[in-house]
């Protein structure tokens, strides 16, 4: 960090906000193409109904709920980096916290779409809100689906505020570095933040409290999402391990997505290489190792619990997952989430940027498939063999899934050109301040 100064940090970050170049525009065209296909597929599904998706009887939850869980947990990983590591004062967080906060907001925005898409009649989403319907009947607070509404809405709201709050000093810094209308707009967005002691005093304390409540929130939201499954009485779902299992999986996939975002950014904006050090990425890789171990432990212990419970239904579902029709997915999950991350034990791999990028993509594939296996297998292979079924992907849900990535990356690409994607003031905190008498 020796060559960095307060001024050079500003310069590098402001340079990233220059008007977009050709590569940005080409990427955006691809992203918008994917998003358009997703919207088109959704429209077709709205017209024809959920028969255009793979859901059937008894597999009522399919790709859409898988996507919901996947994206929500990407968001949790982002909050983990931005909030939990703030509380623990992890130094490597400073360079990646803005990307992780943005990732959280856009991932939760993406996740929030999927319950609506899954509804089929999406325009009736407001039935989920706590208001009395025509018969003056209130919503049922004993339903985990309603807990989800509250948890996800709160999570979206809190992560948006957290993101915007973190931006204020940096918008002020960018405003001061800009000219004309741009300067005016950034200064307005910074709500007259000028770095006075009164502003910093309350800001830092408020930010700390935000980090604390956001930490409590990710534990509760991850648990609530897991209880969508765990409070049912289906084999494979009805398990007390689901809370920590989902939380560890969330951090695992979130860190992988963070690497998948930060590594290309670092490549595209040359100034960022000096700000996001390889050591920072290596620290995220170490978090991947840790959470991979937890996830692997859960995979193993689930089998043991099924065996030790003596329940033939539990044994049957885990046999089905690993040796039934879904075996390809299951073993791919094990390969992606348990075996591939072993490579990260080597420092050479952890500090090799292309290898880190590829491993993070493999983990993302593995985590999506893990959610798919959990969501689909238990309903496809319940108590009664007469009601067993299979799940076939349909083109609409494949395009809607691809479209969701388009939606997510569209926001990332827009934001990267509007707001500083490296937290300027936090990077400065990491530096030794300018002293006349060297300490």
């Amino acid at each position, binding site marked *: 960090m020796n060559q960095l*100064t*307060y*001024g050079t940090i*500003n310069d590098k970050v402001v340079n990233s906000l220059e008007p977009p170049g050709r590569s940005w525009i080409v990427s955006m065209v691809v992203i918008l193409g994917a998003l358009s296909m997703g919207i088109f597929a959704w429209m077709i599904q709205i017209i024809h109904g959920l028969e255009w998706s793979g859901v059937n009887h008894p597999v009522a939850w399919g790709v859409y709920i898988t996507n919901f869980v996947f994206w929500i947990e990407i968001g949790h990983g982002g909050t983990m980096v931005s909030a939990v590591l703030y509380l623990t004062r992890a130094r490597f967080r400073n360079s990646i916290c803005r990307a992780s906060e943005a990732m959280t907001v856009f991932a939760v925005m993406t996740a929030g779409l999927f319950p609506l898409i899954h509804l089929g009649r999406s325009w009736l989403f407001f039935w989920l809100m*706590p208001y*009395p319907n025509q018969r*003056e*009947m*209130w*919503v*049922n*607070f*004993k339903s985990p689906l*309603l*807990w989800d509404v*509250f*948890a996800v809405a*709160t999570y979206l*709201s*809190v992560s948006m*505020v957290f993101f915007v*709050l973190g931006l204020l*000093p940096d918008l*002020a*810094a960018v*405003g*001061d*570095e800009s000219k004309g209308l741009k300067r005016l707009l950034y200064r307005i967005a910074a709500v007259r*933040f*000028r*770095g*006075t*002691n*009164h*502003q*910093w*005093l*309350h*800001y*830092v*304390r*408020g930010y700390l*409290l*935000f980090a604390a*409540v956001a930490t*409590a*929130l990710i534990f*509760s*939201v991850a648990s*609530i999402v897991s209880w969508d499954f765990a409070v049912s009485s289906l084999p494979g779902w009805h398990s007390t391990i689901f809370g920590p299992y989902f939380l560890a999986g969330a951090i695992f996939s979130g860190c992988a997505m963070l690497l998948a975002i930060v590594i290309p950014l670092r490549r595209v904006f040359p100034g960022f290489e000096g700000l996001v050090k390889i050591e920072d990425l290596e620290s995220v890789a170490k978090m991947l190792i840790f959470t991979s171990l937890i996830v692997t432990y859960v995979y193993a212990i689930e089998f043991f619990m099924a065996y030790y419970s003596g329940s033939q239904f539990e044994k049957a579902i885990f046999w089905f997952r690993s040796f039934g029709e879904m075996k390809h997915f299951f073993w791919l999950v094990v390969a992606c989430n348990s075996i591939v991350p072993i490579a990260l034990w080597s420092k050479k791999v952890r500090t090799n940027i292309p290898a880190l990028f590829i491993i993070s993509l493999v983990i993302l594939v593995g985590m999506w498939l893990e959610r798919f296996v959990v969501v689909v297998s238990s309903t496809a292979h319940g108590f009664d063999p007469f009601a067993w079924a299979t799940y076939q992907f349909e083109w609409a849900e494949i395009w809607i899934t691809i479209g969701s990535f388009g939606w997510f990356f569209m926001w990332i690409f827009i934001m990267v050109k509007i707001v500083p994607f490296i937290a300027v*003031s*936090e990077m*400065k*905190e990491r530096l030794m*301040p*300018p*002293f*006349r*008498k060297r300490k």
Partner: protein
Amino acid sequence: MNKKFLGAWATFEYLDDMCAAIGELKGAGFHRITTHAPCPRHEIDHALGNPQSRVPFATLAGGVLGFGVAVLIITKMALDWVLPVSGKPILSIPNMCLVAFVFAILTAVYFTIGGMFLMILRDTCRHPVPQSRKYRDYDRFMRDRFGIVVPCENDELEKIENILKSHQAEEVNIEN
């Protein structure tokens, strides 16, 4: 109508110079100091006497209020239209706690934001800063410079200027 600011402001390249200047200004009886820094620094807090923020009280109030309101809403909804489901209690405390916890966090967050802005506003009103174009357009406080603003009376201006200059202030501006 804004009262015209009377006082001085200075910029510093080095943090230790500014902290020393704050110490001497406080020793000379000037306590309504406003400082500028590109990022939060504990050295400045120490020099200013470690002021404490009361934002946590706003967070606590929001949390308690949110929890209470959620409990009331859920109780009202459960009793207004009774939904008997097998042997489950009509008013289930575990379920209630779950939603109330999430709602408490939501209100705590908004109260924190509200508290933060109100307290910043209050402190800013109590510690006036210059309204001059030169001060407003100075654009290095969020880049790489530290600053001190001291309101004072006319006869104290020279004294403040001397203190600031003695601590190698980069520039000292008198506003009268």
